[in-house]
């Protein structure tokens, strides 16, 4: 018997806390009345309305695990953005934020889907993949997981400390960073944009049938997806989330 259909409605979430992470990013923690839970990887649409009725809408991935009580959105402040500067500069605890979701069940992962799990992120593309990593952690799941994370610099690695902590206590979770613009002294890790050679070294072999989720700016996503298929991964097991011109 089919489940009763649900009409997706706009809800007002209450900003409980805002927390800066890197110089350009901030996490927003929201209490959303009527929130029915989500699957790691899904996103919400956020809508801002001005006094005169003008509206702007953007999509943001849910960075929180389904097991978390609060909804967490990761916002990267785009210099000439219309929505992100409001979310990072103006929005504060106690404010309302209109959103609807969760949406986009295609780009989602639950522990019961297994793995191995290959996660590839560029900058704020880490958000939906962080939800997957946190979900995996909350569920006590040991699916072999590798995150290849491209950031501009060490200071700009989003969720760096939490990722370090999660990986240090869990040998089934490996995190490989690449820093594309500047490196700290003594850096021995990757120092260039993700390419096929790097993926060949980092990714699980295609024969292990990994599930891959790639998220970030469109050029990175397309390079990675093309490379993974070129290395022999099944196209249906490579899921992509391009951010497009308005970020993610």
């Amino acid at each position, binding site marked *: 018997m089919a489940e009763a259909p*649900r009409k997706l409605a706009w809800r007002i979430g209450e900003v409980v806390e805002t927390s800066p992470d890197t110089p350009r990013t901030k996490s927003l923690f929201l209490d959303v009345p009527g929130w029915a839970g989500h699957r790691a990887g899904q996103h919400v649409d956020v809508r801002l309305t001005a006094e005169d009725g003008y509206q702007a809408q953007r999509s943001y991935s849910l960075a929180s695990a389904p097991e978390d009580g609060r909804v967490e959105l990761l916002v990267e402040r785009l210099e000439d953005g219309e929505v992100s500067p409001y979310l990072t500069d103006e929005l504060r605890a106690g404010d309302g934020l209109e959103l609807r979701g969760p949406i986009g*069940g295609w*780009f989602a992962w639950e522990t019961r889907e297994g793995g191995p799990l290959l996660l590839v992120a560029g900058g704020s593309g880490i958000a939906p993949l962080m939800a997957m990593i946190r979900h995996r952690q909350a569920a006590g799941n040991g699916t072999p997981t590798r995150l290849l994370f491209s950031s501009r610099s060490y200071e700009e690695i989003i969720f760096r400390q939490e990722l370090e902590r999660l990986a240090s206590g869990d040998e089934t979770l490996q995190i490989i960073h690449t820093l594309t613009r500047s490196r700290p002294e003594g850096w021995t890790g990757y120092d260039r944009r993700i390419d096929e050679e790097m993926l060949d070294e980092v990714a699980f072999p295609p024969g292990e049938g990994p599930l891959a989720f790639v998220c970030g700016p469109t050029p990175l996503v397309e390079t990675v997806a093309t490379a993974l298929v070129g290395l022999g991964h099944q196209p*249906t097991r490579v899921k*992509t989330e391009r951010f497009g011109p308005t970020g993610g």
Partner: protein
Amino acid sequence: MDEQRLDGNAAAGVLAEIFTFEITTARAACARCGAAGEVGAQMAYVTEIGTVVRCAACDNALIRVVRQDDGPGRYWLDLKGVEYLQLQQRF
């Protein structure tokens, strides 16, 4: 590199205004080339003028949606590009 070209998943929001079932995981067959795959795996062009989901194999317009917000509001939905949609009852 085409910045306007997004994954089908990006159309989830506007499609969720019309379909009450999860559509990004619905399987769609292209009426033009026959390729079948999840809607989320197709390409999407999502802007204020309208949303167009295109076949990842041949760029045929599978689903088109226009939404009018003024007044009582209307939607226009074109599914001619889709041979069929296969939907999951339960997950």
